[in-house]
């Protein structure tokens, strides 16, 4: 089996000088220079220093050269190299974030789009620079009614961490409304943080803006302490990743679940409620943080197959071999940079595979993907209409009314 990597924690504060002394760093010393990482990397052919070369430069004392190159900015933190590395080196967890931070520090200028995003996130608590007072608006508009921690003033079972894209952007809000509908249908006792919530910071840390990440972590941890709840559930694959892998090093120890994992667990109760037939042929795109990083390959597929009428088809690259949508590791805000470098957008590469399956729907489970794929579909020709839906949106649709 391709190993589901342990959700091992990351060493707090490892730097390029100290990393080789940590237990995870010692694994780096075992690299056999096989090139699996470079070969599997979706942008490997555009990197002067793919993980393999980074490691050898590090071991030989030439790592400074790597930092001067902008090669590492191409890493979309997709965990492909880490999942297939035959030595089990935790590249995307441990080494690459450090290299990326140093790369950013050493660049004469940071790509403007990314720069702006990082500033926005620091200032407003969300990457798009929206007002933090508007974060809750989706939950109160159009008659939707979602309980908010500060208002209900009682402990809840599930604290639902909504996240930025799902709070501010139109298509993300669709996703959030679907989650709310499903929570209600299942009778789950839940509430959100509303305007008190700030970005969990996953992409901040994968672009390894460690300062920014820590600011956000400290903030969110304080808010969590204000309330009583049993577990955190989020529909954002990146927030899920941050809570699972990074937050524990700051003392976070709540159980966390992604909505697909939760709903898959609730399938016995959910399935009888999925009464509306959806006659779609669906192909599922594995989100990196859920699939490769957390081993959630079957759960979203089980959910889709539970919907009457849905036929599931697979893309050429699926499960551990899935190809990133290109949004991770800051890639969400590097499209212009990638274009300047003559790099194909990964969302376009992915959408081509989806089109080739003949599916009507690309099902996703990470909020970045909706935008990226819908955008890509605008430029990639296809004869048959194809739409992008979050798995939870399809579930909510199948609930009927």
């Amino acid at each position, binding site marked *: 089996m391709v190993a589901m990597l342990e959700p091992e924690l990351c060493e707090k504060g490892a730097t390029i000088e100290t990393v080789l002394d940590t237990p995870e760093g010692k694994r780096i010393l075992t690299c056999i220079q096989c090139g699996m990482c470079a070969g599997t990397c979706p942008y490997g052919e555009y990197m002067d220093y*793919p993980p393999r070369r980074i490691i050898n430069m590090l071991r030989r004392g030439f790592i400074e050269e790597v930092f001067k190159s902008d090669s590492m900015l191409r890493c979309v933190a997709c965990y492909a190299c880490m999942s297939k590395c035959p030595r089990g080196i935790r590249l995307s967890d441990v080494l690459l974030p450090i290299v990326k931070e140093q790369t950013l520090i050493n660049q004469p200028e940071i790509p403007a789009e990314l720069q702006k995003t990082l500033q926005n996130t620091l200032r407003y608590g969300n990457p798009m620079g929206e007002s933090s007072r508007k974060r809750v608006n989706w939950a109160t508009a159009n008659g939707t009614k979602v309980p908010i921690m500060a208002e209900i003033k009682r402990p809840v079972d599930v604290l639902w961490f909504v996240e930025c894209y799902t709070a501010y952007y139109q298509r993300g809000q669709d996703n959030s409304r679907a989650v709310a509908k499903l929570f209600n249908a299942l009778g789950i006792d839940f509430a959100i943080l509303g305007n008190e919530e700030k970005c969990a910071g996953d992409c901040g840390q994968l672009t390894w803006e460690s300062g920014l990440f820590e600011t956000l972590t400290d903030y969110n941890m304080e808010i969590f302490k204000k309330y009583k709840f049993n577990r955190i559930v989020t529909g954002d694959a990146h927030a899920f990743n941050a809570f699972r892998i990074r937050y524990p090093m700051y003392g976070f120890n709540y159980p966390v679940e992604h909505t697909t994992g939760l709903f898959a667990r609730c399938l016995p109760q959910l399935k009888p409620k999925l009464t509306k037939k959806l006659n779609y042929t669906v192909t599922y795109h594995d989100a990196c943080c859920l699939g490769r990083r957390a081993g959630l390959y079957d759960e979203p597929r089980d959910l889709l197959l539970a919907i009457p009428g849905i036929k599931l088809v697979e893309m050429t690259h699926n499960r551990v071999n899935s190809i990133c949508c290109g949004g991770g590791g800051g890639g969400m805000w590097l499209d212009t940079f990638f274009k300047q470098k003559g790099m194909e957008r990964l969302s376009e590469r992915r959408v081509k595979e989806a089109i080739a399956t003949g599916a009507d729907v690309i099902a996703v489970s990470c909020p970045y993907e909706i935008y990226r794929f819908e955008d890509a579909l605008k430029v990639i020709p296809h004869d048959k209409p194809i739409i992008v839906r979050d798995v939870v949106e399809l579930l909510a649709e199948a609930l009927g009314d």
Partner: protein
Amino acid sequence: MYIPKKHEPVRIGFYICHCGVNIASMVDVKEVAKYVGTLPNVVVSRDYKYMCSDPGQEMIQQDIIENRLNRVVVAACSPMLHEQTFRKATEKAGINPFFFQMVNIREHDAWVHTDRLEATRKAMALARAAIQRVPLHKPLEVKKVAVHPNVLIVGGGIAGIHAALVLANAGKRVYLVERDPTIGGHMAKFDKTFPTLDCAMCVLSPKMAAVGSHPNITLWTYSEVAKVDGYVGNYKVVVRRKPRYVLEDLCTGCQECVEACVYKEPKFRDEFNLGLGKRKPIRLPFPQAIPPVTLIDPETCIELKSGKCKKTCLEACGDRKAIDFKQQEELREILVGTIIVATGYQIFDAKRTPYYGYGVYPNVYNALEVERLINASGPTNGELVMRNGQVPKKVAVIHCVGSRDENTNRWCSRVCCLYSLKLAHLIHERTNAEIVNFYIDMRTPGKGMEEFYNRLSEEGMMLVRGKVADVYPDPTDGTTGRLIVQAEDTLMSRILKIPVDMVVLSVGLEPHPDSDKIRRLFNMSCSSEGWFLERHPKLAPVSTFTDGIFLAGCCQGPKDIPDSVAQAGAAAAECFSLIDKGHIEQEPNTAFVVEKECSGCKSCIPLCPYTAISLLEDKKKAYINEALCKGCGTCVASCPSGSIVQNLFEDAEVFSEIEGLLAPVPV
């Protein structure tokens, strides 16, 4: 032999060894000798450069005589190495060898410490522990147990075959038990073998035939070992013989039944050809199968499934009357003195590395399938045609599939680099196809192997240093099933995407999934990976931790045919050494039950890892079979009434030893 007289005062001689500088550099041996000389009962206390040398041993013997010593303690290396040496030396001078005690101050002390003072103190404590226990020792006797001359060999691959012939040719009676319907193992599936590129069956089939007809070999194929009882020299083994529905003594191997089967065409998955060909319900696995006896598969035979077949096979067999639909499983019991386990390996299931598309893309094959495809007796009569009916023009061979990988198997499978080169050569020879070998490191150890690599490189195959990351259909190709193989050429730092017609996965070797069951059956140990564990990686490579049970071939770890055969010869020699000596000596450190104290609670019985304990039904007392007891001490510690005593580890001995160990030392 020295018989201690009652109340005779204990007179101990203590000797501490320098072991060159091994011990002396970390332990102040002179200080230790001086200190031990002050302890009660110690008559002489000396240090010496090499105690195990002849002068060292003579020194002990001389002291025994001159100083009337009746106990000897030597502080030196591990008892695993020299306990026997010193026991013999004391025995020669007239003392019971069990009045000798060894103290390990090398492996347990000098080699594992860095502080000389602390190490010296530890040596003193360890020595004193022995000085305190040795007065309590009792004279013991080494027992002799006869060794039954027959040998059981489990697994009829090249290793099992070779061991069987070596033993049988020397006149020993051998039982060879093979799980499959034929012997031959993996080698019987190969076309040619590296490094000589000689035809595999040309060298194997004469040996297989010799096994089949040897008067000293009882060959039981389609059989498995069901139970093993007993101990070295006297193993009682039960073998389960599955029904073939064809009687071995009556079948002539003419295969007229196969011809006559109501299925005109072969229709079912042919196991021997890994599903690449088809067979009938009645068949011979392959032309040179040994025994040359057909068998019927009950899953697909109409008669065996429903009793409603015309039984044309039976008709064809006629007066020979070899077909017997009523044949039942049989259990055979045999007595043997020694056992060789040679159960080999299985190939890695490439579905566990899904990114290579095995089982998804029809043009992706594993290496063993390719061996069959290029084999003249294989499903395509040796012509390399793929599932789509085409002959490949370009082929990628991917090394290390399921080897050297934390996500699958961590070890190097040792033979796949070489067989990859071999297959590349053979495929090129048959098809003129262009071959690309993707490797991480080219590993060609062994005699003639680097030369083989050198020779084949000259043929101009492309060798890319990089582990293949991805195999996927060529998006520009509609129908032929062409694939893209993607990898970094690490020597060029460039990503290659090479279109090929066929992909060969050089799958690694791994233990059988039932290796844990087999391990328990024969009371062996496994490494964490599941390979059977040898007693010592260098000095006892074919022995196991169970006396009289030996290993040969790939069940001990991946290896090539020459090494498998060499091991088989070594295992056979180990059997000879026991058989020809005729008996084995048993350590007397066994446990025994003090009957009057035993309450018959039976709690010790299931705990014994060697099943040495039983209940004497008449007396309702536990009884320990001395021949089976290995002196592990489990029962001794567990007996609620404390009624089990172990020789050399009696309570009083152990407690004085502990007291000696824990008392303060002077420095």
